């Protein structure tokens, strides 16, 4: 199996819809994947178009037609000896490697982000499971959950403010004096 056909069969086997929707990839990753696919398709189209424009020369026709056989032989020799220029693909390979490195890095970053999200989700879940009814909340627990309350009380007390504005309007006055 030649390299070209192998590439073609491999590219035909890729299930793009699953990659786009099934893996839950990031937006950036999907965009770059789509770009890559579009580049690949255009390259493929251009290749086939170029192949289609290559003229097929019937040399035997010219052999019978032209009197100067040496010219025909010359042309045949030139045509036979013509070879497509080989491109140096290592340059492209390095570009591909760089792209791969970037992609792997992005994937690792995504993985890390997902892990931290999972941790916070687990925290939230534990929070929900250990949550107690509203009536059973204690001041200590609320202060632990919201340190800014303790901070506010500390500054209030340091400034000699011992009353909470708006408290009596909300909860009523219960003191006997």
């Amino acid at each position, binding site marked *: 199996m030649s390299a070209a056909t192998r590439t073609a069969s491999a590219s035909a086997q890729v299930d793009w819809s699953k990659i786009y929707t099934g893996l839950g990839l990031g937006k950036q990753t999907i965009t770059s994947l789509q770009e890559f696919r579009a580049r690949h398709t255009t390259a493929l189209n251009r290749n086939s178009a170029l192949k289609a424009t290559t003229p097929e020369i019937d040399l035997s026709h010219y052999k019978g037609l032209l009197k100067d056989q040496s010219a025909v032989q010359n042309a045949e020799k030139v045509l036979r000896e013509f070879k497509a220029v080989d491109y140096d693909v290592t340059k492209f390979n390095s570009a591909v490697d760089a792209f791969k490195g970037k992609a792997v890095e992005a994937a690792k970053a995504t993985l890390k982000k997902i892990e931290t999200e999972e941790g916070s989700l687990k925290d939230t879940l534990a929070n929900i499971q250990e949550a107690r009814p509203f009536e059973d909340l204690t001041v200590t627990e609320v202060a632990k959950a919201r340190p800014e309350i303790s901070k506010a009380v500390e500054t209030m*007390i340091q400034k000699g403010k011992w009353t909470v504005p708006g408290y009596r309007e909300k909860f009523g006055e219960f003191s006997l004096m």
Partner: protein
Amino acid sequence: MPQLQAFYFVNQITFALVALFTITYVMSVYVLPYFVQLFVTRVYITKL
């Protein structure tokens, strides 16, 4: 009344002052700020 006998006046004033300052200190550092915290917490959790 033994309190009115002059021999123990210094004793009495000593204990009275120590008790007053102890009560003031404990109340103002430990007890009363807790109530302020309680009120602030009540206002806070009803505002959420």
